[in-house]
């Protein structure tokens, strides 16, 4: 399964790109699993994801907690807490 990952703010800056396609193994069930797996793929990912408490996520543009199963998601976004307004 290929998932489109999108990143924003300092998560995007640390990873060095705003989006990428990934194909996680079957052992990746939740968003937190996905983040953990990605953190092992490169130093920039590890740096971006080092403090899980500061990460938020959206699955197919719906905001979710990190323990949410990714199911058959097409797009998963990882970003810091929002600061608009």
């Amino acid at each position, binding site marked *: 399964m290929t998932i489109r990952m999108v990143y924003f703010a300092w998560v995007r800056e640390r990873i060095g790109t705003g989006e990428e396609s990934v194909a996680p193994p079957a052992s990746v069930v939740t968003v937190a699993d996905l983040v953990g797996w990605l953190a092992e793929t490169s130093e920039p990912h590890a740096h971006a994801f080092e403090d899980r408490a500061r990460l938020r996520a*959206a699955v197919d*543009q719906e905001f979710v907690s990190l323990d949410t199963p990714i199911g058959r998601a097409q797009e998963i*976004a990882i*970003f*810091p807490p*929002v600061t*608009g*307004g």
Partner: protein
Amino acid sequence: MIHISVQQSAIDIAAEMTRAEAAGAGAVATFTGLVRADDGVGTLELEHYPGATEAALLRVAEQAIERWTLQGAIIVHRVGPMHPGERIVFVAATAAHRGAALEACTYLIDRLKTDAPFWKRETRGATARWVEARDNDHAAAARWDQPET
């Protein structure tokens, strides 16, 4: 009437007020957030999540319309680079009576602060930093989840 806009261009208050008033009700409450001119920020940059942002703002507006029986809800948020004194966000609630308009206006901005995917980066001199989320924004948004008293 619902109007949502996420835009690069400056926010035109007169045009938005005309839109809010055209709903034909007696009361319009608005909130405008500005880049503060007093704390040394040279440039403020707003990043967002295209598509998800508009959907989140629409949901906030729909919830306000339903909860306060509004005639209209407007949310306009600027993205991209901006400077001190410029408008970042404008929200408006139009209702028959002032209590509903004022409460709904507060709801729109409180919810937007926690529910819409925007991120602010401030540049002061040569230093840029991402603005940290504030706990009291979550407290402000959460009070709308309490059962009505």
